[in-house]
């Protein structure tokens, strides 16, 4: 039998223009996967293509532009069913007999509902509004709201609010940095997200790896996570935050817990997570104290007790088939915010098979949850955050029109600081310095510059969102919330349109 190793068929080829190459060694130094090396006898830099992950770090850093990294597209005889990835995965498993790991989000070819939804605009009968000349408001409150307000007049004859309002988060833009743990990401990225959230008047989420002491000063714009591993959860951790989030599930890997390989657990991470250096941090699949909705209720209220009912408590679930009923239960269990994480959401490490084939799109999850909560008359009780694959400001607008209050962005935030979606986060060797904890490589991510880039991204999206609200003739984001009449579907089936609650393009209001 022919022994066929995975490395027989490289995925990427690296083209080097030797006329341009000055043999400076930059690419050798930049490659963290040991794919590039200097051949002294030939006085040449060459690439071992079998090791290349396609992160394009060498291409970006080469001072003379001599390098092109290209995906190999014709490695096997064309086959529409047995594609290259499938073939390679089988070789890989036959070699090693393990679970194939990956990072990042689902990159398979499923229908992208965002791309089948179009946004409405005003013409004549209602004027569009110019955001450069008129106020345009994005401020969003996240948390429980009463169904009605009670207003009374005081002795001075002024109206006064009698209703006590539960604590809410106030975001100046309905875009929040998604939970990505310290450990999966390094401290530089956490610093950047915290600083950017602070500057933009929004929030960032710690993920399940707790909060480094240096970042406690950003507590007011921090959502802290409590996941099944309970890493670094302390009274202080809960108190310093603006809100606490119970992570039940993750869109990239519904039904399984977080994985942080021991290689990534250094001294600082060990202190922050309260685990020994070098141990694998594997969160259990379920919370071992939550086996039912009533158990969840207990944890929600334990956190509320611990934080004196001063902070909203969020519950994050992966978008799964029965998401509407589950969300209704969570709302009734006392959560103030529900995060719906769609199957396009990213991860630091996940079995590829789970990432690729478990869960449902967030577009659908938001639509059915919003509708269900309205039918039950409890939509005011909770805010909905849509997460998992939000790519641009139009996705945000569509998510809110479908019924979300705000969105989380994870992959978009990583892209903003240099990620090229090579999906090797789980190796700890990220050449862009984002998902590595090797202090030498992590230096590549300057937290100040990264924060600036994140701020730029949010500013750009905020401008675009204001433009889109304006062209819809709306000057406050709350008038977009659940406003599915401002969306139209193109190329969807009747059932899909019914589930999303949208009309087909061409049908008026």
């Amino acid at each position, binding site marked *: 039998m022919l022994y066929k190793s995975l490395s027989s068929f490289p995925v990427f080829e690296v083209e080097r223009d030797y006329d341009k190459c000055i043999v400076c060694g930059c690419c050798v130094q930049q490659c963290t996967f040991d794919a590039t090396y200097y051949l002294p006898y030939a006085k040449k830099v060459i690439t071992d293509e079998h090791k290349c992950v396609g992160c394009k770090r060498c291409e970006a850093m080469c001072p003379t532009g001599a390098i092109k990294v290209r995906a190999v597209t014709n490695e096997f005889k064309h086959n529409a069913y047995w594609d290259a990835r499938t073939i390679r995965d089988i070789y890989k498993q036959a070699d090693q007999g393990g679970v194939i790991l990956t990072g990042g989000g689902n990159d398979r070819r499923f229908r992208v509902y965002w791309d089948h939804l179009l946004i409405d605009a005003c013409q004549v009968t209602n004027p569009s509004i110019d955001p450069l000349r008129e106020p345009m408001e994005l401020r969003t409150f996240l948390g429980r709201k009463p169904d009605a307000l009670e*207003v009374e*007049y005081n002795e001075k004859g002024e109206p006064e609010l009698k209703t006590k309002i539960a604590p809410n988060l106030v975001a100046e833009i309905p875009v929040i940095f998604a939970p990505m743990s310290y450990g999966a990401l390094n401290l530089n990225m956490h610093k950047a997200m915290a600083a950017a959230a602070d500057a933009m008047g929004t929030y960032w989420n710690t993920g399940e790896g707790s909060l480094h002491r240096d970042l406690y000063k950003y507590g007011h714009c921090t959502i802290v996570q409590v996941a099944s591993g309970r890493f670094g959860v302390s009274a202080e951790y809960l108190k310093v935050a603006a809100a606490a989030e119970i992570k039940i599930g993750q869109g990239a890997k519904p039904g399984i817990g977080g994985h942080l390989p021991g290689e990534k657990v250094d001294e600082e991470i060990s202190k922050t997570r309260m685990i020994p250096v070098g141990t694998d941090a594997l969160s259990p699949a379920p919370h071992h104290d939550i086996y039912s909705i009533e158990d969840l209720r207990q944890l929600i209220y334990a956190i509320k007790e611990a934080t004196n009912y001063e902070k909203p408590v969020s519950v994050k679930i992966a978008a799964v088939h029965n998401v509407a009923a589950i969300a209704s239960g969570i709302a009734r269990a006392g959560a103030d915010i529900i995060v719906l994480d769609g199957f396009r959401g990213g991860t630091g490490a996940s079995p590829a098979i789970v990432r690729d084939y478990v869960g449902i799109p967030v577009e659908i999850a938001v639509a059915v949850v919003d509708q269900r909560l309205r039918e039950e008359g409890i939509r*005011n009780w909770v805010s909905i955050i849509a997460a998992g694959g939000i790519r641009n400001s139009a996705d945000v607008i569509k998510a809110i029109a479908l019924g979300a209050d705000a969105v989380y962005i994870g992959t978009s935030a990583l892209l903003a600081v240099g990620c090229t979606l090579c999906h090797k986060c789980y190796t700890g060797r990220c050449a862009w310095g984002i998902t590595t904890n090797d202090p030498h490589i992590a230096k590549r991510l300057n937290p100040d510059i990264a924060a600036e880039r994140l701020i730029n991204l949010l500013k750009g999206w905020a401008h675009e969102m204001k433009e889109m609200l304006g062209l819809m003739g*709306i*000057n406050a984001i709350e008038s977009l919330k659940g406003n599915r009449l401002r969306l139209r579907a193109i190329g969807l089936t009747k059932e899909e349109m019914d589930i999303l609650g949208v009309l087909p393009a061409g049908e008026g209001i």
Partner: protein
Amino acid sequence: MMVLTRSRELSGCGLSGIISRKKNLIPGEVIIRSITHMRERGNGLGAGYAGYGIYPDFPDEYAFHIMYDDELARKETEEYIKQRFHVIHYEEIPTRKVKGIQDSPLLWRYFLRPIEPPDESDFVEEDYVMKAVMDINDKIRGAYVFSSGKNMGAFKGVGEPDDIGEFYRIDEYQAYLWVAHTRFPTNTPGWWGGAHPFTLLDWAVVHNGEISSYGTNKRYLEMFGYKCTLRTDTEVVAYLIDLLVRRHKLPLRIAAYALASPFWKDIDRMPENQRRLFTAIRMVYGSALLNGPFAILVSWNGGLMGLNDRIKLRPFVAAVKDDKVYMASEEAAIREICPSPDRVWAPKAGDPVIALFEDFDGGTQFKEHQV
């Protein structure tokens, strides 16, 4: 009557309202003159009136005005009504033959007293009536209740305002509060139900503009049992007022601020108490915010309120003369019936103009009024 299942009225319109705060009766001819004076604002495809105090013989009965496509719809509706109400009196709405008015539906009115269900401890009469209106409009094909308040009535249809006035014999009624509307529809021309005013109980709303937040408002109202069956954006205004003022008991002025909220830049500069209140209004009633251009008149048995959208994208003028308060799209419509008012002004964006009857005692909910 033609009911289009998926159509929404989008219109540029004119509106006018008069209230006598001392409840002196104003002949219908006056309001006809005022609204007809803004012919440019309509295109003859819809007009309507609502008068308060027009049924002194039945002051305590709910006056249902219903339009029917055919006798079948009438039969079905009357059966429904008889199960739930004592019918004190009913008749065809008196009309005249007018050259400009064609294809009118069957128009009937009923003076009703609810039959209280025997074992319902938390019976709320208004909710009972509201549900009946929603049921008829939603479930009975070809029937549409276009007025359901006490001692008030709405009259509306397809035509120029003077023709509609003549058709419904508005000149034969006397009211101490009138509102009127002329319509320039761009979407549902030819449907009698699409004309203004839109009513629920004694709330009547006439509206010039388009509600860009309609989808949000509609789905919000559905949570509270309202059914937006008429595919007209103005409908949501009537229901929102009913929800906020009658059911949630918000002060009228505060409800107006929920519909046309101040901007955050202004709220952030308010004194602490006020800032807390306005922040809460926007947090809790964000889905009730009416976004898009509008000028509306809201009338009920307590008075008249006029309101502009938050950036004043539609004209709106108010005037006072003795015990009368006038509100209209244009000053000309006021001057036509009141040549020398004591005061005329253009209210600011989002700032409600409220005129109450002197004998109206709505408690603190209606404590703040302006004129």
